[in-house]
Structure formats: C-alpha cells, structure tokens
C-alpha cells in the first residue's frame, strides 16, 4: 500500500452543509445532464470526490475487482488503485471501526457494508464510537466518515438479506442518515455526505440501483435536512422514503384519475429531518400517509407520523396513517414476501379511505 500524495491540505476541508448547487428534482436539468442509473450516479459521485480529495478512500468486502456484489463500484479500483479501494476480510465491525479511526486522524473513509441487514454487527462501532466521539471529546475529535449500505426487500433473499434497518441508525444522535430515492439525489447527497464532518449512514435501495434518471455532469451537492417535493398535490400528502418514493409516485398516478391530487414528499434525510416541509404539506392537504420500507413497529413511519400529527394537529381532517413493512421477518417465498411491503395499490387504497373515497 502506498502513501497518498502529500498535498492533502486543510483548504480541502469543506463545510458539509453548504450546497454548491441546490435543485429540486422536480425541475429537469437538461444542460450537461445524462440519463444514468442510481448505481452509476453513486459511482460517479465517489469517483469525483476521490479525484477531488485524496483523503477519500473506500473499504469493504469485494469492493475492488468485483466492484461490490451489486457491481456499483465497478471501475473505481482501476482508476484509484487498491490502496484507495480496499478489499477487506468479512469483518463488518472492524472495517467500520477502521473507518472511524481513519476519520479521526485525517482521512475521509467511505465504508461499504454490503447488506443493511449486517448493521447488527456494527451498531457498537456506529452508535457508541462514531456517533459519540465528537461529543464525548467536547468537540475536539471528529469522525468525517460515510458508511454506505443497502436496504429493501422483494429480491427473494429471505430474512437476513432484505431488511431496511435505517430506523436503528436514525435513533442515534450524532449520526446523520441519508436515503436517496433518485439518481440525481443519490449523486448530490453522496457528495454532501463525503464532505460532511460527521459520520453519515447512507442507505441505498438494492432494487433501485437500476432506476434511471437525469444526472448533471460535474459537481453539485444537495443539502441535508431539505425535503424534496417529488410531486405537488392538494388533497393528501404522501411522505415516502427511499424505495417507497417510487411507490408513492405510482400511487399518485393511480389516484389522479379518481380525483385525488396527492403530494409526494421525500425527506431525503431522516437525520437531520426537514419537519417544516412535512408539516406544511400536511397543513395544506389536511391528510397524510407516511410510507417507509422499514418494519412498521417502532420504525421511521412512527417518527414522521407523530411529527406531522403534532405539527399539523389543528389542520388534519383524518389521522395520519403509517405504512411500513409488515411486522414479520421477511419471508423467502415470493407469494409471501410481496405481501410484506407497501405497494402502489395498497397506498392507493389507504389514500382513498382517508379521502373518504373508498
């Protein structure tokens, strides 16, 4: 392993929250944009950040020649070499801890945890180490690290390879949690994550790696804590995260001919959370459904729903409804697995009921 070029200068330390360009995904960027998949957008963000900042490196299982099990990182090792795209043993806890130690001492590690289900192995490193070091040290040490991992079911991968466990990370002060839902967001949010001075957990939906969308060439960042209105509407608010954004958009399409205008809002980050936008939309529409692929019980839907129910209390015409993954381990059998996640149809049905059109 060789040494990184000595020109790492503190001027390259950017403040994580300044967006060099802020775009609502509603507007279609045309100049200098290309269609690409979400997976390609992730790769492009990484490549650009690695070119920009020699402190950025990737560590994880099968990330180099194999380019990960999902082939998201294909080609990076060819450009940056095995000293910056490091194949690790199957040691999730320790590679996360190595990331923390590296981040504390001047590097910008991007740790790759193949399946989000495996974060059970690293919660100590994430929650007791990464999340707390800045605070415990009274602000002296910091952990500018990104941990990329995945979520999402319906890949027929059964109970230990299908979970969406972002609620665990979202519960821990000191971590930031990002859930991109489009190629555009994925690139911009990942750049923000890498430049952030804090530990950021970045969840990618495995099923969405092939999702296509317009992505600008070159540099742009998307600030954390700014929800994106993926579709404007007036009758009901659908707050959806990650994989569920497409489901909500499809539901909105189904609702339109029924005369129900749905507004689809993507918080993009659960921590920090843009409570303002969520509440404002619910106040406007007077009805809301929160949709997320994590287990429903004690999950992300609970936080979002209770924030809306509180903040828009005097404006709501119906209770805020939650649609998470069914409270069961994810079954293998396709006929069962498909029942466990919200779909455009079940969201549509719920929206119709809430709007009194069932």
């Amino acid at each position: 392993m060789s040494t990184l070029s000595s020109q790492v200068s503190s001027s390259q330390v950017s403040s994580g929250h300044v967006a060099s360009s802020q775009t609502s995904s509603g507007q279609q960027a045309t100049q200098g944009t290309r269609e690409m998949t979400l997976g390609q957008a992730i790769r492009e963000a990484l490549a650009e950040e690695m070119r920009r900042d020699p402190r950025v490196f990737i560590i994880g299982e099968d990330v180099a020649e194999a380019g990960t099990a999902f082939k998201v990182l294909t080609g990076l090792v060819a450009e940056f070499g095995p000293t910056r795209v490091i194949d690790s043993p199957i040691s999730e806890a320790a590679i996360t801890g190595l990331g923390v130690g590296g981040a504390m001492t001047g590097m910008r590690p991007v740790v790759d945890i193949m399946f989000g289900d495996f974060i059970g192995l690293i919660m100590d490193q994430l929650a007791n180490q990464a999340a707390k070091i800045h605070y415990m040290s009274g602000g002296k040490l910091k952990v500018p690290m990104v941990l990329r991992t995945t979520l999402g079911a319906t890949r027929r991968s059964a109970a230990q390879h299908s979970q969406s466990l972002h609620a665990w990370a979202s519960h821990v002060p000191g971590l930031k949690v990002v859930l991109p839902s489009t190629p555009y967001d994925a690139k911009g949010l990942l750049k923000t994550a890498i430049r952030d001075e804090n530990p950021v957990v970045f969840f990618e939906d495995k099923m969405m790696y092939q999702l296509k969308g317009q992505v600008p060439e070159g540099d742009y960042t998307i600030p954390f804590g700014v929800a994106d209105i993926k579709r404007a509407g007036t009758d009901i608010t659908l707050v959806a995260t990650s994989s569920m954004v497409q489901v909500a958009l499809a539901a909105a399409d189904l609702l339109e001919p029924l005369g129900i205008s749905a507004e689809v809002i993507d918080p993009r980050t659960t921590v920090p959370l843009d409570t303002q936008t969520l509440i404002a939309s619910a106040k406007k529409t007077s009805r809301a459904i929160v949709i997320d692929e994590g287990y429903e019980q004690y999950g992300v839907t609970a936080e979002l729903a209770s924030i809306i129910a509180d903040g828009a209390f005097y404006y709501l015409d119906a209770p805020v409804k939650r649609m998470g993954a069914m409270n069961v381990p994810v079954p293998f059998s396709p006929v069962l697995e498909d029942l466990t996640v919200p779909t455009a149809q079940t969201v549509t049905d719920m929206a119709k009921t809430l709007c009194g059109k069932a």
Partner: protein
Amino acid sequence: MPHPHTVSSHKKEHRKEQYPLPADREQALLMYELMLKIRLFEEQVNELYTSAKMPGLAHLYSGQEAVAVGVCQALRRDDYITSTHRGHGHCLAKGASVDRMFAELLGKAAGYCRGKGGSMHIADQEMGNLGANAIVGGSAALATGAALSSKMRGSNQVTVCFFGDGALGQGVLYEAMNMAALWKLPVIYVCENNLYTEYTPIGETAAGEISARPKAFGIHTETVDGQDILAVYGATQRLVERARQGEGPAFLVCNTYRYYGHHVGDVQRAYYRSKEEEQEWRTNRDPIKLLGARLIENDRATPAEFERIAQRVQTEIEAGAQFALNAPYPDPSEVTQHVYA
C-alpha cells in the same frame, strides 16, 4: 456434464497418507451415493435458476461434497449441525430429502420451512440440522450454545459447526471458540477453506496460518484434504470420539474448492480465478472421482454399480424437482404465522 463417476480420467494423486476405506462396503457406497446426490441436486438447482424457475439465488456446494458427507457420516442422527449460505450439501448429508428441499428452494408450502426460509435457511431439526445461516459466521455462537446445552443435558450429542474460510473474518468465531475451549464443549468447528470469500482470494483476507487460530485458544486442530472423503471421515470420527469423551472442542480445516461461482449468477469469474485452476480441481481433485477410484482399485465396487447408483439418484432428483414445481405456494395467511411461537 460428464457423469462424475467416470473415473477413467482420474489422475492418481500423490497423497501423504492413505486413509482406509470404511470396513463396511455399504457405508462406502453410501458415501459415494450421498456425494453424487449433492452433485446432481446442485446441477438441478442451477438448471432451475437458469430456466428462471427458482426465485432468488443459490450458492452451490458442488466440489465440496466430501466435506459434508465425510463429516456427517461420522455423526449420529441426534448430533447437531449448523450450516451456511452454501448449505445444500450439509443438509442432504445430514439426511434431508430432496423433494422437500426443492420445495423450499421454490418457496413452496411443502418445503422444510414452508417456503419461508429458502436456499439460505433450510433447517431440518428431525435430523439435527439446526439450520443454515446467511450471516457469515452467524452460527459459530449458536453451535457452541447447542454444545453447551447438550453438555448440560448430559445428552452426549456433538455439534458440528460448518463455515467457510470467510467466517475467519468474523470476531464472534473467536469469542465462541474461547468459551468452547474454557468449558470443554463438544463442538467441532469445520472450516471449509475453498480459497475464496465471494470474489476475493483467501490470501487477501486471512493473515497467518488458519490452523494457528484455533490452536491459540487451546483447541485441538487438524487439517485434511477436503477432497478425500476418507480423510475427512477418519478425522471427524476421531474428533467426535474426543468430544463425546468430554475432551472438548476441535477444529477441522478442510481444504476444498467450489466448482461454480459464488452463487448461480456468478458466471464471469476470470477476474478472480482462472479457468485452468477450476479445471485442475475438477479433473484431479474431484471427491466423487477420487472415492470411485479407491473403491474400484480395492475391488469394492464396479463401474456398473456406480451406473446404477447414478440412475437411482438422478431419478430421485428429477422426481424431487418435479414434486416441488407442482407443489402449491403457502397460503397468504401464513405470512403472519410463526413470528412468535
């Protein structure tokens, strides 16, 4: 695929030690049959995958058959095993039936787990199979706990914990081995070193000597040629005997190789291993060929017998797959069953 029992091409290997054939001819033939059953089962799985009849992926055990069968032949029915993502071989070797396994792989209600587990989670408690685990290293502590339990219950059962070389990266293995050694638990850790963790060669993921690791915890450790079922069987017999006598845990490194990709979808493998390497193992280190040759050399079997076995197994596999294809899916109401006992 040429019939794997075509032993004529088998190039004699120079082995340090010749492990004896089992005294019982029937057992030797059973070993042969079980290995062949695993081989043909996996061929069928691959076929179901490529013809888009199987949901998801599967990790084929082909090439490693001598490990599962050699180990399990040394076990009692009530001895426990824990298995891995690459677990079909362990499951069959411990006595599972092919029809219910295929049904599980297709997500059918007749499967071992009513279709809820799938390829990576088959459990068959009637045969002592505590289940496959899709978390690498995830069964190390479970197996050790089963051994603690049998010691407490005085049942004299032994537990075998199967795992791949990749599990050497998981800390919980060392935590568990430490306790097994401290408390002399009747557990045997069987490390199937097939040289790769997914797409990364073992040299890049494991420092030092594998066998030094369990030894450091005071655990009796042996290394065998995992392609030689007689070596695997002989070693396991000794280790099981020790464990039953209360002499504590053991660790068995089996050097082996997987013929196919990491999973059925891993077909372009040139970037991490060569065709020549694959060919060398298939040609000269095939466990079924090796046992077949030994049996014939020692006049314990004839090519005709192998042919009959192959026919029988092939029929069983085809019938099993057909059974599974025709079997009904679980009722949707089952989705909320079995969350709690």
